[in-house]
């Protein structure tokens, strides 16, 4: 058998840390992944006892953003209290969570938006080497049933009933990971594995720019075709750590903003508004796109907004826990500026510039 891969080593370290954290009582629960029942899948798992630590895995298919689960798991370990009583004052149990670059930025946003108490979270940082898109791998083997996929550091070995093929890992990494500039967590309490350096990325918004260059009619044709297969299952919404309204605007009855059935207009509006709500907050974790059962590229909309937010207001979401939220908090000085000529704000210094010594090697798998 091959040498232990980087991810095998990370898995071992995660298990070790998990055991330690739970044993010492430092945390009451840990959010991670267990092996899935199908090739290229993992299951989110909340570990609460030592036995379950052995079920934790880390591999290149961890596409779901674990931050989605954080607020709920935090409240599940709180001492129960009657909602009519004041919150208990004693310090509440902590929760540990695995986080890559984008997930950690989502945790930062949860802290900024007061969804999560920084004191109660133990961030186990893992530098991301890019997660593989199951859809991309499947597309390489049309009409074939993939039975297992073995993971090496730079390649994947795909086995079917009548074939075995080795493919380059980076070639099937998700689009958002390929254009990601911040693969390393911005918030780390416990570090697992080696830090991954910032990536130089000359064209982070290439897909968006390509579409922007097309004509209005072509863009409309793209939009209608892309979203025509939506079945309104709301997986994109529910998997998103940014979506946490108790009642989503699609479900509102008074007033009812949108129709609920499959209608091109209602479906389109849902996606536009959902993306809009992520403006200035989206970290491009790609969970929405990864979970869509119909393979819709709704990330294009959030990516466009990310581009605008960066170009107009000079902000990248979730980079600093102390920073204010771009669309709700800002220095009043900038008010004058907008009034003056309605021009976009200059790119502020808050953009984290990719370091010039970015590690190019990781791009090649």
């Amino acid at each position, binding site marked *: 058998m091959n040498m232990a891969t980087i991810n095998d080593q990370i898995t071992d370290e995660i298990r070790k840390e998990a055991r330690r954290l739970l044993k010492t009582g430092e945390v009451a629960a840990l959010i991670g992944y267990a092996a899935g029942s*199908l*090739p290229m899948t993992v*299951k989110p*798992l909340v570990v609460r006892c030592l036995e379950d630590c052995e079920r934790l895995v880390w591999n290149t298919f961890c596409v779901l953003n674990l931050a989605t689960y954080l607020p709920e798991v935090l409240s599940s370990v709180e001492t129960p209290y009657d909602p009519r009583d004041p919150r208990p004052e004693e310090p509440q149990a902590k929760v540990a969570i695995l986080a890559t670059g984008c997930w950690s930025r989502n945790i930062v946003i949860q802290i900024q938006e007061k969804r999560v108490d920084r004191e109660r979270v133990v961030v186990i940082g893992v530098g991301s080497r890019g997660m593989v898109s199951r859809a991309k791998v499947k597309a390489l083997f049309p009409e074939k049933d993939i039975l297992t996929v073995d993971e090496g550091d730079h390649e994947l070995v795909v086995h079917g009933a009548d074939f075995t093929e080795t493919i380059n890992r980076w070639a099937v990494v998700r689009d958002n990971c390929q254009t990601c500039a911040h693969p390393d967590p911005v918030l780390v309490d416990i570090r697992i594995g080696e830090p991954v350096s910032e990536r130089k990325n000359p064209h982070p918004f290439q897909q968006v720019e390509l579409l922007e260059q097309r004509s209005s009619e072509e863009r409309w044709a793209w939009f209608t075709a892309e979203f025509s297969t939506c079945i309104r299952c709301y997986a994109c919404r529910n998997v998103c750590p940014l979506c946490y309204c108790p*009642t989503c605007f699609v479900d509102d009855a008074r007033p009812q903003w949108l129709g609920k059935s499959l209608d091109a207009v209602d479906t389109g509006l849902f996606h536009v508004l959902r993306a809009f709500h992520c403006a200035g907050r989206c970290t491009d974790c790609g969970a929405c796109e990864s979970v869509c059962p119909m393979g819709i590229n709704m990330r294009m909309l959030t990516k466009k907004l990310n581009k605008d937010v960066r170009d107009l207001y000079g902000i990248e979401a979730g980079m600093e826990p102390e920073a204010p939220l771009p669309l709700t908090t800002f220095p009043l000085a900038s008010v004058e500026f907008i009034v003056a000529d309605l021009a976009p704000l200059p790119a502020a210094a808050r953009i984290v510039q990719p370091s010039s010594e970015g590690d190019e090697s990781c791009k090649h798998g």
Partner: protein
Amino acid sequence: MQTWMISPVELDGLIQQWQKSYAVYVPALSKPATAATDCAPGWRRINAGEPWTLPVGPTPASVKSFYFPQPEILMTFHLEENHPDKGVMREPLKSHEMQVVLGVRPCDAASVLLNQLPFTEDPLFMAKCQRTALVGFTCTTRLSTCFCTEMGGSPHHCAGLDLALSPLQNGFLLEVLSEKGETLVAGCKLVPASESDLAVLADRRQGQGATSSYSSQLEVLKACALSRLYDAPMWQELGEACINCGACTFICPTCFCFDMQDEVVQGQGRRIRYWDSCMFPLYSQHTSGHNPRGKKLQRTRNRFLHKLKYFPDRFGPFSCVGCGRCIGDCPVNIDIREVLNDLVRRTELE
């Protein structure tokens, strides 16, 4: 009924003949250029001579939307001021156009029969049954997510189909299974299947009898007391991982929950019924705000128990055909086969 031997060329001719008088639908494998046709996303209508391919295993979308479209217009009305019919509900005219759905797999055919159990009194569903002919292909490949045999089906079964095609070396065995099927092949000169071909088919079906030990375990599950399954600790972990999206319910061929609502656009109104999912919190929420299934765990449990306990309690069979779509598309890899196994283990613990 009769079984024929048909070559691929003859089959193409047959399909072209249907296209003269019926709407013929095939699985859509890529995104359609325009909006979903006829409210059957995942399927497309083809014209004479247009090529089509059948995917291995179940079609991407189930045939559910042909019977239970999303949305279905129940009635229409006008709300414009001074309209003589203001507020009067009118029923839409039912279509009688025959439609042929080509490329149905045995699991989906079984799902139509299952859904007919609750919908037997529903005029809209049954009218669509009347005008829809299912032309199916039995499966030669079993995907790793397929588990139809476990649910009492078989890749070679043809129950629920009007015409069944089973691939052989140099063509297909064409089984005519209903009056609608008869109509579809009426007037065609076809070669009857030979004894040896029939024997091959019989042989395939023989080999795929119910896997006895598992199916007897499932019978035990059906008879198990509800409280025992309801209180199983397994729901905790499932409920925690589930993100409560509706992907599994919407791609499932046998999920049939619906909601009803009025839509009004510029004075014109209609009452529609559209797919709902028991995974959504609002599904069971009272007007008062009280929600009997307010927790994720309760909703996840309700979905599985509905399929594996409540439906069998009412109608007999499980409300699952083992197509495996939900396994492949669940964002958090909740695998109904694992749920089944856990439940079976639960019945064994005493």
